[in-house]
C-alpha cells in the first residue's frame, strides 16, 4: 500500500474507498484497497486479467450484490456517504453511479425506450415532452443523435456494435448520474468504434466522474488523467497517468506497462 499512499490524491474526490476487501465465498478477490476517484477526472484501472479491477469497479455501485457469496468489507463513500450503509438505497445509488458493460447490452426495445427507460422508472420525466428532451439530450451527448434521430422507434439491438455501446452510454447518462463506471467498454468493438467511444469519454469528462477498466494500456494513456494499477487483488500504484506511464515507481507497474507480462 505504500506506493498507493504516496500517489497524488485528486483535489476533490467523488468516491473514496478505504481498506476495501472483497470476497467471493472463501476466495479474496480484492485485498485492502484504498483509492479516491476525482470529480471531473477519468480514472483508469489497469492490470492483468484476474487482478480484480472489474470486481472492484462493480463494488462501486454495488453490482456485486447480485452475485451470490460476494462480500465487501471496508468503506466506500460517495460524497462522504457510505454506499454499503443499510440506509443507502441501492436503486438510487445505481442511478447516481451508472454503469456501462463490457458487451453492449441494449434492451431488446426501441432506441427511444432504451434511453427513456431509466428516466421513466425514476420518474425524472413527468410527461412525454420532457422525456423527449431527456432522450434527445442523452443521445446528443453520446454522439448518436445524428445517426438515429430518424429511427428512434427501431430496435436498439439492430444497431452496430459501436452504436449499441454508445446507446448504452446514452442510457446511462439519461438518468443524470454523478459517476459513470465503464467495464472494458471497447473490448468488443473494432478500432473505429473504439476511437469514437474514446472521443466520447473525452467529451463527457467535464460532467461526470468516469472510471474505466481497460486491458488496453494505450487506451488508458489516451483517455485517463489518473491510472490505478492492480495486480493479484491489490492496488500496486495509483497516480497521474503521465507519471504512471513515463515514470512508474513500482517495478511491477513498470514491467506491466512495458509489456513484460499481462
Amino acid at each position, binding site marked *: 500500500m505504500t506506493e498507493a499512499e504516496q500517489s497524488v490524491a485528486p483535489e476533490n474526490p467523488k468516491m473514496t474507498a478505504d481498506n476495501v476487501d472483497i470476497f467471493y465465498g472463501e476466495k479474496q478477490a480484492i485485498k485492502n484497497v484504498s483509492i479516491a476517484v476525482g470529480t471531473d477526472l477519468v480514472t483508469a484501472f489497469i492490470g*492483468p486479467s*484476474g487482478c480484480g479491477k472489474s470486481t472492484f469497479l462493480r463494488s462501486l*455501485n454495488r*453490482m456485486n450484490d*447480485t452475485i*451470490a457469496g460476494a462480500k465487501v468489507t471496508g468503506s466506500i463513500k460517495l460524497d462522504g456517504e457510505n454506499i454499503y450503509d443499510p440506509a443507502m438505497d441501492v*436503486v*438510487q*445509488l*445505481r*442511478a447516481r453511479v*451508472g*454503469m*456501462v*458493460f463490457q*458487451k453492449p*447490452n*441494449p*434492451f*431488446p426495445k426501441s432506441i427511444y425506450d432504451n434511453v427513456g*427507460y*431509466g428516466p421513466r*422508472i*425514476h420518474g425524472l420525466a413527468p410527461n412525454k415532452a420532457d422525456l423527449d428532451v431527456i432522450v434527445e439530450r442523452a443521445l446528443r451527448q453520446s454522439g448518436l443523435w445524428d445517426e438515429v434521430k430518424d429511427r428512434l422507434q427501431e430496435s436498439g*439491438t439492430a444497431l452496430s456494435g459501436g452504436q449499441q455501446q454508445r446507446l*448504452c452510454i446514452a*442510457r*446511462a447518462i*439519461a*438518468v443524470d448520474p454523478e459517476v459513470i463506471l465503464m467495464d472494458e467498454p471497447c473490448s468488443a468493438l473494432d478500432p473505429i468504434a473504439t476511437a469514437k467511444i474514446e472521443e466520447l469519454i473525452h467529451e463527457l469528462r467535464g460532467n461526470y466522474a468516469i472510471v474505466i477498466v481497460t486491458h488496453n494500456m494505450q487506451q488508458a494513456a489516451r483517455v485517463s488523467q489518473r491510472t490505478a494499477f492492480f495486480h493479484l487483488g491489490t492496488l500496486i500504484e495509483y497516480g497521474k497517468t503521465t507519471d504512471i506511464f513515463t515514470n512508474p515507481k513500482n517495478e511491477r507497474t513498470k*514491467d506491466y506497462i512495458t509489456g*513484460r*507480462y*499481462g
Partner: protein
Amino acid sequence: MNSTAPVTTPTAAPLRRGPTAWKSGAMQGRIAARYAAERRFRRTGLAAVLLSGLFLAFLLFTMVGNGLRGFTYTSVAVPIDFAASPLTVGRDAFTAPDADQQLAGAGLREIVDFAAEEALGADGAALISENAWRIVRDELKANPDKATQRGTFALPVASAIDTAAKYDGTADAERAVTALREKGLLSTGIHWPFFTGADATDPAVAGIWGALKGSVMTIMIAFAVAFPTGVLAALYLEEYAARNRWTDLIEVSINNLAAVPSIIFGLLALSVFIQFFGICQASPLVGGLTLALMTMPVIVIASRNAIKSVPPSIRDAALGVGASPVQVVFHHVLPLALPGIMTGTIIGMARALGETAPLLLVGMRAFIGDVPTGFCSASTVLPMQIFLWSDQVDRGFVEKTSAAIIVLLIVLLSMNALAIYLRNRFEKRW
C-alpha cells in the same frame, strides 16, 4: 502468469515421419466406410420420417373416413298437418320458460308419430327416430307460426335406418330404405344436433357440444389456476430464491410431480377437492382444478427454462440504470421469457385437454344429457365423451366416436397453431 519465456520442450526429440499415404488402399477403404456410414444414417432417418408420416396418414384416413359420416344424418320428409290435429296448448306456450315441458305434455310426440304413419305406412313411427318430435319441437319454438299450419318437416330416421342408408343394415332396414328411396323421401344433410346437443342414448340427437363446452370450461379453470401459480413459482425460484438445499429439494419435487401418472392426481383431487372441500363433483370446476394440479409442474419447468434463457446481461443493464429487482423481472425478464412460457403452457394445456384418467375419478365419467350451464354443473369432456361413445354397440355411435375424435384433434391442432403463432409473434432477438 507473468512468464515471458517461450514455450519449448528442448529435451523431446522432434518427431520424424514419412509423408502420409493418402492414396493407399487402407485409406481408400476408410473413406468408403465413412461415406457408407453417412448414407446408412441418412436412409435410416428418412425411413423414420416416412414411417411416422405413414402412421399419421393412416390415422387421418381412418378418422376422416369414419368420422365425416358422423357429421351427417339421414332424414325423411314427413308432412305434418297441425290444422287437422292441433296441439293442446296455446301459442304462448312456445315462448314460456318451461316450453319444453308444456310441449311434451301437449301430445306433440303422438302427432308426429301419427303423421309418420300416415306418410310412410303402418310402421312409419318406427322408421323415424324416437326423438324426432324433439326436432319438431325445436323448430316450432323457433317459428311458432308453423304450429297451426300444415308443413313438411325433415325428421331424423331411426338409428338402424340411418345405418342402413349409410352402410349395410339389417334386411328389414334395407327394405325400408329402398322403399323410402323410391318415394324420394330420404335426404342426407349436416347433422346440426351434433353441434348443439349433449350426450344422448339415441345417435339421432347425440351431440358433441356438451362435451366441447365442458372441455373449454375445464381448460379455462385449469389455465386460470395453473398459469399464474406456475409462472410466479418459476419467477420466484429463478429470480429470488437463494440456491440452497431447500430450493434443490423443491426443484427435485417439482420435476418428480411432472412425472407422476395423471391418475394419481385424480385420486388426490377426489380426496382433497371433493371429499375434503366438498366442491361440486363432475363439474368443470373440479375437473379444471384436477388438471391444474397436473399441469402446474409442467408450466413451472417450462417457465424456469424460459426465464433462464434470458441473458444475464439484460438483468445487469436494467440493474445498472437503477431498476429494482421487481422492475427487472416485470419490465425485462418476464416479457422476454413470455414466448417460451406461453409455448410451454399451451403444450401443457393441450395435454390436459386430452387427459381422461384423472377426470374419471372426479365423476366426469357419468352420462350427462345436458349442455353444462355453469362451472358447477355436471359436465363431461371431449376425450371422456369419446371413451363413453366408443363403449356403445350401436353402429351410429361408432361414427359419432370418430366425429368426436376429429373435433378433439381440431381443437388440439388449433391450440398448437396458437402456440406457434404466439412464439413467433412475441419472440425477440438480442
